[in-house]
């Protein structure tokens, strides 16, 4: 706050620098959006505005199928990751030795996608082989194909990818929660689940919801792990990237990239606007309460 008053121009300059940096980081995406509305594609001299490329994306059954798979994957992964993150965060708060938990849950952040993907790929392949061997020894085919590359293995890979983010977000919101409230609820006779659902959850709801939106966006965007671990289906990004790698950028792939970007911007934008409105209304409420009652 100090330099805001000491030197307003320097303060504005710093803001400008920060916004400029965000725009620079976004510039490739913004440029792709700009190209995606051009009827003549990339590098053309003339610029004719069109929605044609988007229409092509939505009439492509391959892409629509991929979109459906991606959404299913995102929903399933989110439904597992977020409860896991909440459980882990609750355990973390009470645990004596926090280091192993932090290590296990945050280490996937530091493992590059290709390394994690290939390690899991080989792990699943050998698990599959040993399960089939086990089934042969026991004379049953019950174990066959448990860990064959499929939707299931992609889900596991993506849970490991998303869990650190969800864990951090939930942990940050849980930092504001005072555990005495749970103790009070338990003393009043509520069981653990009641105490969580009625007392704690309403207070960490914002964190849980943002963890959910993070998971959806991350799964939607993920390419490397999904492409290594998926079975015989395609997601939106794997279709997009394989098209780009094989045939280069087509106007349609610009449209697809922009769509992914628009989705992410819409979600983050609505979170920012939602929190703005919420803090605004909360502060109005607080002001109303603080205002002295006039007797006239």
């Amino acid at each position: 706050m100090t330099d805001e008053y000491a030197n307003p121009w320097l303060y504005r300059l710093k803001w400008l620098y920060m916004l400029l940096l965000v725009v620079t980081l976004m510039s490739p995406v913004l440029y792709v959006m700009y190209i995606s509305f051009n009827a003549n594609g990339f590098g053309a001299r003339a610029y004719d505005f069109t929605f044609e490329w988007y229409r092509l994306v939505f009439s492509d059954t391959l892409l629509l199928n991929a979109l459906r798979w991606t959404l299913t994957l995102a929903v399933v992964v989110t439904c597992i990751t977020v409860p896991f993150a909440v459980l882990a965060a609750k355990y973390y708060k009470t645990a004596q030795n926090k280091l192993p938990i932090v290590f296990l849950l945050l280490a996937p952040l530091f493992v590059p996608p290709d390394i994690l993907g290939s390690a899991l790929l080989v792990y699943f392949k050998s698990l599959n082989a040993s399960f089939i061997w086990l089934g042969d020894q026991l004379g049953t085919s019950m174990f066959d194909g448990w860990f064959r590359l499929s939707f299931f293995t992609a889900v596991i890979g993506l849970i490991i990818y998303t869990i650190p983010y969800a864990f951090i977000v939930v942990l940050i919101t849980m930092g504001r929660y005072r555990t005495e409230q749970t103790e009070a609820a338990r003393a009043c006779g509520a069981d653990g689940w009641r105490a969580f659902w009625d007392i704690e959850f309403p207070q960490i709801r914002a964190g849980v919801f943002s963890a959910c939106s993070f998971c959806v966006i991350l799964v939607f965007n993920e390419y490397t792990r999904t492409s290594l671990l998926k079975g015989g289906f395609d997601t939106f990004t794997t279709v997009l990237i394989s098209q780009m790698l094989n045939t280069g950028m087509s106007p349609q792939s610009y449209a697809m990239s922009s769509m992914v970007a628009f989705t992410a911007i819409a979600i983050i934008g609505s979170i920012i606007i939602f929190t703005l409105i919420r803090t605004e209304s909360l502060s109005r409420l607080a002001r109303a309460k603080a205002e002295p009652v006039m007797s006239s």
Partner: protein
Amino acid sequence: MASLTTNSPGGAARSAGETSAVWRERVGRWIFYLPLAFMVVFFAVPMALTVVFSFFERTMFWMEPAFTLFSYNNFFFSARLENFLTSMKYSALAVVICFIFGFPIAVFIRRSIPQVAQHRVILLFILPFMVSEIIRVFALRPVLQRNGLVNTTLMDWGLIDEPITSLLYTHTGVVIGEVLSFLPFIVFAGFLAMEAVPKFIFEVCDDLGVGHRRRFTDVILPLAAPGIFAGAVFIFVNGLGVALLPNILGGPGAVNAGLIATQAITALDFPLAMAVSAIMMATLMGLLYIGHRLFDLTKILTPLN
């Protein structure tokens, strides 16, 4: 113990209810271990097994148990090692650039922006990170190309006469890609790290008449070191491990560990891929261990406790 005392007076129905409650409590306690068990089975074990698999012998389509150093030999005594070391150099360069551009922002947010608005400003930096990294990297191609955004703009302004061709399909391209992909992380890590630097420290420094440079090197840097280190390791390791960066933006010679591993998988040389993974994990663990000994990395999470 509890069940003993509550069991005696009630009827059969009540004791059944009690046992189910006790049973539920017990399950409730175990369920907290579920995420950890999941992470052990599907993360820690596969990562540890990469070391075991890397000693296996390669067969036509798969591998068989053995103890051979062939894969390591294959890595260390070929162009792969050279590529790996070169990518380390450029990755370190990307870390330095990210730090120079990104860390002042973390300081600025912590110092000059009101507490309630800080998280919202951080969300601004989450925005580029939320658009798929791959798409952003791909989108860099039309920006950096011969007739791309940067070159046409510079030529329109009359700053250059000929397009700069060294921006893409070179090491420069890879470094640009790394900086643009990973810069938000140094902002996040720096933001967390600056939690260790209370606001009054700036006032104390002003009162004592400490210059900007000394304030930065003697006060802010040591206090924020754990977070900065974590961010730097993240960027460094990802610069080494994200295969698509050199694949899309790099030219000849731009090969990093991730690309070596994925190429080995495509060539069905699984032991080599596992050896590369093991080397990467060793690098990562070594860096984290050094960092932990130097700065105690658990400090980063203290604001959360």
